[in-house]
């Protein structure tokens, strides 16, 4: 599904990713852990096509083709989804309007018919009930006045509706209390499927108690420096990132 080869990327001339190699096979959930400043969030932005990052070397093979030159909106339509660490508030754009615009834009880009309004509403209803997203939240402007937990649930709702092939979850646990973490994790787990890959980026191990990964990668100083099974997360929790600090400096 996703194969990253020797990926180098910089912003404002400063190299952040220094040769990332990573393979996430279809249907697997991989976690990326690492100290602050190791390049985890940059990797999520570069994968989803944010402007301002220069990929200076390497390839991102997604679903068989290199997407390095592909703009963000085309990657989304092709099946890449980023759940934001800090979802944006957009006053004046109703949540439902946003969801419909996104869903139909992606369908259109893939040559599929736009959803009828009743069909769209039915899909939102089914997905929102699972995630405890109220009708009242859906009527509000996007993320405006939402609590941290509501914003993250709204991200997972978008993921459920857009049905990506690759979901990148950037620090989805940040700002969540235990109950909200459980709701969000259950939402993510319900979306695990043999056709869908996930890349879970987190600083802390606790999210991985709820979303158990197939593999854990440790990122430091812009590279993947170690790969292991779920037990690697526990080891990092116990020992910290001190062993990798040298490479981050």
């Amino acid at each position, binding site marked *: 599904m996703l194969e990253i080869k020797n990926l180098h990327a910089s912003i404002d001339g400063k190299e952040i990713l220094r040769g990332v190699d990573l393979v996430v096979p279809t249907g697997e959930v991989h976690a990326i852990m690492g100290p602050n400043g190791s390049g985890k969030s940059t990797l999520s932005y570069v994968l989803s096509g*944010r402007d301002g990052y220069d990929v200076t070397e390497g390839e991102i093979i997604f679903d068989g083709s290199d997407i390095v030159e592909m703009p*963000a*909106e085309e990657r*989304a339509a092709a099946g890449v989804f980023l759940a*934001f660490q800090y979802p*944006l508030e*957009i006053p004046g754009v109703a949540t439902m309007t946003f969801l419909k615009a*996104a869903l139909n*834009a992606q369908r259109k880009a893939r040559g599929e018919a736009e959803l009828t309004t009743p069909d769209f509403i039915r899909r939102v209803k089914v997905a929102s009930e699972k995630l405890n997203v109220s009708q009242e939240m859906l009527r509000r*402007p996007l993320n405006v006045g939402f609590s941290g937990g509501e914003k993250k649930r709204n991200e997972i709702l978008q993921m459920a509706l857009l049905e990506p092939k690759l979901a990148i979850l950037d620090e989805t646990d940040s700002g969540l209390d235990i109950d909200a973490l459980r709701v969000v994790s259950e939402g993510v787990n319900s979306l695990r499927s043999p056709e869908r890959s996930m890349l879970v980026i987190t600083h802390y191990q606790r999210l991985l108690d709820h979303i158990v990964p197939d593999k854990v990668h440790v990122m430091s100083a812009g590279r993947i420096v170690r790969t292991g099974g779920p037990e690697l997360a526990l080891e990092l929790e116990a020992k910290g990132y001190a062993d990798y600090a040298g490479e981050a400096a």
Partner: protein
Amino acid sequence: MNAEPRILRTQAEETLALEFAAARTQLPGSPAIAAARESAFATFQKLGLPHRRTEAWRYTDLRALLRTMPPLAVGATAEVSSLADPLPGLDRARLVVVDGIFRPDLSDLNGIDGVTVRPLVDLLQASDARIGQQIATLNDAVVSLNSALMIGGVSIEVPAGARIERAIEIAHVTSSAVASHVRNIVTVGADASVRLLETHVGPAGSAYQANIVTEATVGDRAKVIWAKLQSEGNAAVHLGTLAVTIGTETQFDHLTLMIGATVSRAQTFVTYSGENARAGLFGATMLRGKQHADIALSVDHAVPNGASRELFKAVMDGRSEGVFQGRIIVRPDAQKTDGRMMTQGLLLSEDASFFVKPELEIFADDVQCAHGATSGEIDDDILFYLLSRGIPRPEAETLLVTAFLAEAIEGLGDEAIGDAFEEISRNWLATRGQEAA
């Protein structure tokens, strides 16, 4: 040595002097009106066209912008080639004014029973006291010029207690490259309720000038929704003035949407004559190319317990210039006044400019007045959020610009008019780069 300062006139001012001299005996109205025209033209000559040192006009230098004047509209019945309806889908009665002449043959007065509509000429012949009443103290050259040269317009009288459901539009149409001076008189009786629209259109590519002055009074406890759409042709100059006095416990909500013309100015003067009146004043401006649009607002709290809300938004692309000047005056007696003014500019291009000048003149001590102004670009983070969900860039920008303007448009509090105006803002970005003025 002659101590008289020599007044240097611009070519446009010279042309106007010649035109007034030639037209003065033919302009409509009673002898009293004719005398008022002379006096108004003398005022105009004394003031001259506004320029950079005219404080109220400092960002719209007409002396520099109006190099030449097109000929005065002559009042003949001009042919109007079919002009697209600027507000399709919005049901309303239409009073069509072409080059300043009210045209019953083109108008639709159905569904407004009880409302009296008359051509301005009738009021001019009768020396109607309402002509000139609301603008008497403005000392504005463009308004004085209008008083000297006004050729027509309409009068709308909504009787006391009337509830008029169907919106009433004054549709100002310019047919060709002329200068027209239009005067409208609107009188809303006590306890009445009415929704008014004024639209301004004309042919693309035609360097016409439209100078429209509307004088209005809103009776006690009346409720008025008033929406103006300035959608003039892309080579036109639009100079619009509304001077309105609102009575006790009135609710007056006004929206100005500016999208057309190459140079435009919309002046709104609101005076409170009775207590506990509330005014909501909103604006949405969309500019591109080299367009210049100036919204000037003056809210005069002359009596206690008045409230006003002002929200003005402007989106500027290309090399356009947006201007907002907002003045809130709180007279010594106007205690407990509550005034809040906010102006926000969104720049879509590095070459666009936005000039904002809030002016608060507060002479009472127990008041709440606030003003704020912001100016910025589309937020990169927000744009990326939309792109990352698969929404293409043009659609994402349209969503954000529409949302930005919607807050001001929805402030008017009229769903049907708001929807029609929002449609205009949605369509605006869709034609980005196509019709740069």
